[in-house]
């Protein structure tokens, strides 16, 4: 047996706490260093930029502190005030419409025996794989001045509010379906049996059982959809026309007029509704008591002819526009020169003709998304691990957790502007990152940090809590346990996070639009630029390419990845 030697090096002059703190084991030091690294990392890539942005909103162009002067000036400008109201209108309309559609769709998927569920699930998820400009471009093909079915609008223009709302409904729909299928999926069959015993009508059952149990899911969904709608830039940029919203204002102020101060003020105004939505949600979640306990029995719908037929019809009606919009984008990308030469061909995919960078943006996107997925997922897992392994009462835990939740409420444009202020500052030793692909990776990982963090924490909580203690008793260092046990066990979640980061990195425009230089242009930015230059076909083609790439990766993951996992995860 290994002899226990007295190695404690007493420092009598260091009293109590300090002495204890310094005496920590190697494992503890490693944990502390990792925690310090994570805090530093999030400080640089998230908190620092946001603070610089906030600071910028309260100084004048000379850099003098002016308090809320900029905000008064902003709100005093009629056109800007109008944008704020416009944005809220968009947010409200989109949230309302998406909630109704997605709830119906999710209800069909979880509570009925609708045929072809798998197909509907895939269709419902498709829009998430496209950049938000794609539906807007497609809507122009459909309803624009030369649109194929513009007669359906009876002389109304699709440019402006209608286009923005339809585009955003399309693009945010999958997020809502995902959240609501989860909320509706966890129903307790016992409650429905009780309702039947009490002879409640189906409608009464819906209002007394179904709706209350989905209430918190609905609130969360509303908050997420509202935030997405008020902060999205791509749809409004393409199809907004004269209808100005905060996101397009901000783009004009920063890129057009180089008025960074006003850009910062707009950022803050965009941040406000997002933070309010987030706070309302957080407040409501705290009051939520889980109605679904381990004793509950999962509700499984039984076939019911009229109901199933009705939902088949409803879901088909909801899914049809998705198919039409995506189909139109693909068709548009294949038409040689809309509307004059309708011959089909791959002309639009010859990007070099329309854009000096040619195919480079697409390759940049692949590279950026790949690196963001690989580094981001590992980083997220390690930081979640650090949070989970903190001793009770440590301040590190709430600090990292708090930072990890921030991105949820921060729009990409706001983050991107913050990056300009923070990294484009000659005093910053990291200023060299400006204009590189690295900064795009950093901003993407920061922008999509929250979901990954939550997934990783949930997974780690499933591991037995005491394995580190056992390992210490067997003299096995913690980092070894991490590689040998924690990482393999978390592999499926890690890959889920990686795919999520990859898809979002491919489709995102918001932060990148402020941070790219010609050499680091991304595919999604190329969509925007070519569209802006009037090349609808090539813009559509690039958008379709992104969609196809994201879909391929998703499918690969679902097919090959899962099979591979099943082999390595034999212990499950």
């Amino acid at each position, binding site marked *: 047996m290994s002899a226990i030697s007295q190695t404690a090096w007493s420092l009598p002059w260091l009293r109590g706490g300090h002495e204890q703190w310094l005496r920590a084991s190697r494992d503890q030091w490693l944990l502390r260093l990792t925690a310090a690294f994570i805090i530093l990392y999030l400080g640089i890539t998230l908190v620092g930029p946001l603070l610089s942005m906030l600071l910028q909103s309260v100084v004048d162009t000379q850099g003098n502190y002016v308090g809320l002067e900029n905000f008064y000036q902003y709100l005093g400008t009629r056109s800007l005030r109008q944008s704020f109201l416009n944005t809220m209108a968009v947010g409200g309309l989109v949230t309302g419409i998406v909630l109704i559609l997605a709830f119906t769709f999710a209800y069909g998927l979880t509570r009925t025996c609708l045929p072809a569920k798998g197909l509907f699930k895939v269709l419902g998820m498709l829009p998430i794989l496209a950049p938000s400009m794609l539906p807007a471009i497609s809507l122009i093909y459909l309803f624009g001045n030369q649109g194929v079915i513009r007669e359906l609008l009876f002389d109304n223009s699709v440019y402006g509010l209608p286009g923005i709302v339809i585009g955003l409904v399309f693009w945010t729909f999958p997020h809502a379906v995902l959240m609501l299928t989860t909320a509706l999926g966890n129903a307790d069959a016992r409650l429905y049996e009780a309702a039947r015993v009490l002879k409640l009508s189906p409608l009464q059952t819906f209002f007394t059982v179904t709706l209350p149990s989905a209430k918190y899911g609905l609130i969360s969904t509303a908050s997420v959809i509202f935030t997405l709608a008020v902060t999205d830039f791509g749809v409004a940029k393409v199809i907004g026309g004269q209808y100005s919203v905060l996101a397009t204002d901000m783009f004009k102020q920063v890129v057009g007029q180089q008025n960074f101060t006003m850009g910062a003020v707009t950022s803050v105004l965009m941040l406000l509704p997002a933070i309010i939505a987030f706070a309302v949600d957080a407040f409501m979640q705290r009051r939520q008591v889980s109605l679904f306990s381990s004793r509950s029995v999962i509700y499984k719908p039984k076939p019911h002819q009229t109901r199933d037929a009705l939902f088949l019809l409803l879901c088909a009606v909801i899914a049809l526009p998705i198919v039409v919009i995506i189909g139109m984008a693909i068709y548009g990308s294949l038409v040689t020169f809309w509307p004059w030469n309708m011959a089909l061909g791959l002309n639009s995919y010859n990007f070099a003709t329309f854009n000096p960078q040619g195919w480079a943006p697409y390759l940049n996107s692949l590279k950026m998304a790949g690196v963001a997925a690989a580094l981001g997922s590992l980083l997220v897992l390690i930081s979640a691990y650090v949070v989970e392994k903190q001793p009770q009462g440590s301040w590190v835990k709430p600090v990292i957790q708090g930072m990890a939740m921030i991105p949820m409420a921060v729009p990409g444009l706001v983050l991107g502007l913050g990056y300009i202020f923070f990294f484009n500052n000659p005093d910053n030793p990291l200023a060299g990152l400006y204009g590189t692909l690295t900064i795009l990776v950093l901003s993407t990982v920061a922008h999509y940090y929250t979901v990954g963090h939550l997934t990783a924490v949930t997974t780690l909580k499933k591991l037995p809590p005491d394995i580190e203690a056992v390992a210490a008793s067997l003299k096995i260092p913690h980092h070894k346990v991490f590689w*040998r046990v924690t990482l393999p066990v978390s592999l499926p979640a890690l890959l889920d996070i990686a795919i999520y980061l990859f898809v979002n990195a491919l489709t995102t425009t918001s932060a990148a639009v402020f941070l790219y230089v010609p050499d680091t242009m991304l595919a999604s930015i190329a969509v925007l630029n070519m569209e802006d230059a009037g090349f609808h076909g090539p813009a559509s083609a690039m958008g379709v390419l992104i969609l196809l790439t994201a879909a391929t990766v998703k499918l690969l993951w679902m097919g090959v990845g899962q099979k591979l996992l099943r082999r390595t995860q034999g*212990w499950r």
Partner: protein
Amino acid sequence: MKPFLCLENLNKQFGQFTALNDISLTIEKGEFICFLGPSGCGKTTLLRMIAGLESCEQGHIWQNGANITHLPPEKRDFGIVFQSYALFPNLTVFENIAIGLRQQRASKVAIEQQVNHWLETIGLPEIGDKFPGQLSGGQQQRVALARALILSPGLLLLDEPLSALDAKVRIHLRETIRTLQKQLGITTIMVTHDQEEAMAMADRIVVMNHGVVEQIGTPEAIYQQPASRFVAGFIGAMNFLDLAGGKKGQPHIIGVRPEDIHLTASAPGSLQIPVRIERTEFQGPLLRVECQLIDCSSTLRADIPIHQITTANLTPGTETCIWIEHRRMQHFRQEEVV
């Protein structure tokens, strides 16, 4: 010869909350010690301090003659088993047990031989290739035990190892643990809140409450001479009688176990008390009788072996007498009554 493990004046604060208050305790080599007490009394905290999993700001811990107070857990010498089994879920049973040896860079042959030996010892020779998720709770806990013992540590720590198991498995496994412990002669500390378990297994029991040690002693001593009213009430059942003016005129409390109350004068010099029968309850081997003292409001519970109830009339409402032998009475000071 110094004791194997020595705890001196240990304190533990969590913020304002005192989890452990001035704990001192010595444990001899080869002893089986149980920490027993109600939930939240600090048993786990004390065990974790011995393992080095909780820091120790006040007091000292000595093991095998060395001061280990501030050593990190990996520098100490113990094996540990948790209620949650804490097996590595993605490693086979064989690997779970072998991992400690691999870390020590033992040879392949030695590992193979040792692990198989331990699989035999815990009575599960066939399960090396299985994963923990494929085993029952009792089997998992056996594997955890083998894993904790394979490096032959000087001290085995068990934190409620049996609490997650069902009654039959629990009794079987507690025999396994006890036999193994005796065979190896390994000093063992087990945390439990099950008094029956503690009494059946321990050489000595440390009864804890609210972060302090109430009593340390053999199971018999703790049952027969509880040091405080808390211990008396926590271990087994006890009636408390407030008899004014005891010895030296001090008010004090008498404690008597239900099985020490008789319906006849069984021994000379018994205390006779008139009571009224309130309720009876048939319990199989004995009859539980609840009765009220005639001259005051206290109630008593008596357990009377069935074969002794032949003539006595025990219908509720009957007035009769009970007898208690003097030597069976415990005396507690008034201030101990909460």
